[in-house]
């Protein structure tokens, strides 16, 4: 094993960093949009959702990568699903036992992590063909890339829709409501999440020209 790489070699760090920018799962690969719409009306559920997804993607990637040489090709999707579903149920059970209020807030969305395409996408595209450690990092990175967008969207939706940040009412504090400012109720509804994501994609692409396809 002379060609063994350093744990945090540049290549490995890139696995962690790239999903935050040039290969972001939401803004570039456009995966996991569904839950990005559902849990981003306020920041707190978005943060908890992000943490849960990071844990699930990282662990699922790790487990599948460890098993990659044993998985029968014909049932590999089923195996992936079983691993993801079990992890999600474990996360859900742990949340219910230790942070009950948060698990109540997320309600069905934790279960819906199972259907998050980012996770299956990474398992298929990365974990099945790579060693455990890089797979684990790739999972962490993609989970974080997803979470980053989620939290940005949630920040704007909560600020413009409910006039608060993390439940702290900013609009009332700086007295905007007294001069006739009204919160935009539309921001709280899911369509505006889609539009917010769209704006983020626009900004992302205009700053990183390499993302724009050749005609």
């Amino acid at each position, binding site marked *: 094993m002379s060609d063994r790489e350093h744990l945090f070699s540049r290549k490995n760090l890139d696995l962690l960093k790239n999903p935050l920018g040039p290969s972001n799962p939401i803004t570039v690969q456009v995966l996991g949009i569904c839950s990005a719409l559902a849990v981003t*009306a*306020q920041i707190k*559920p978005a943060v908890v959702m992000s943490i849960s997804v990071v844990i699930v993607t990282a662990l699922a990637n790790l487990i599948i990568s460890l098993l990659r040489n*044993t*998985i*029968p*090709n*014909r*049932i590999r999707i*089923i*195996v992936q699903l*079983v691993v993801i579903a*079990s992890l999600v*149920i*474990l996360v859900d*059970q*742990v949340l*219910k*036992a*230790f942070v*009950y209020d948060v698990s109540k807030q997320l*309600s*069905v969305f934790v279960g819906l992590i199972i259907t998050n395409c980012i996770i299956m996408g990474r398992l298929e595209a990365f974990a099945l063909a790579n060693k455990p450690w890089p797979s684990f990092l790739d999972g962490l990175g993609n989970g974080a890339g997803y979470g980053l967008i989620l939290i940005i969207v949630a920040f704007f939706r*909560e600020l413009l*829709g*409910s006039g608060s940040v993390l439940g702290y009412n900013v609009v009332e504090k700086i007295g905007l409501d007294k001069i006739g400012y009204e919160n935009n*109720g539309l921001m*709280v*509804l899911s369509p505006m999440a889609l539009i917010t994501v769209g704006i983020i994609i626009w900004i992302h692409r205009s700053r990183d020209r390499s993302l724009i396809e050749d005609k």
Partner: protein
Amino acid sequence: MNRNGNTYTFIYASVMVIIVATILSVAAISLKPLQQQNIEVEKKQNILASVNINPPKEEAGKTYEKIIINSYVVNSSGETMEGIDAFTVDMKKEHAKPVEQRALPVYEAVIENEGIKYIMPLYGAGLWGPLWGYISLNSDMNTVYGAFFDHQSETPGLGAEIVTDMFQDPFTGKTLFDQNGEFVSITVAKKSEKAPEQHRVDAISGGTITSKGLQEMLYNDLQQYIAFFKKKKNSRYE
């Protein structure tokens, strides 16, 4: 062994399922007591919230013991039903039964200097999922002393605002019966909607269906207690 053969695939799938099943059952069983306790503590907190007492999680059990002096189950004719623990009554299951057969829990809370309050659970439907709550009445069985509402999946920032004090506090002091003793419940009304001041609270703008669901819930569930309310009221003057 041939990794693409049928035998291998079957064995692989079976072993995987057994391992996963074991892990999940162990997790479910070992975490169950903690989860159950969370649910119980929350219920106690919710009941106490309806009489405007909000103890932290750690003290909820103790405070509950101190404040809630009595609990029992009545039926829709106002008679006490024996042998049922009010705390364990599942409102969702009761709602599946016909009204006459429902077990209706009542909790009696004693508040310092203010006497006994009667707490009734509520259960109904919002926009996306169930709503529930507790409402407490003064011993005149008419004036609301406090209310607490919660929901499973109402829209954050809109319908979900029913959990805020801003929505719940105005219920205090409202009455359920009009001067003639007719049951009118409480209307959760929009600004434009007319309703007597004594029987109305403001709805949530943008949360109309949740607000109306909550109004229905109050009407339907409190209606079942009318016989009990009248009985209690009369017994005070005897």
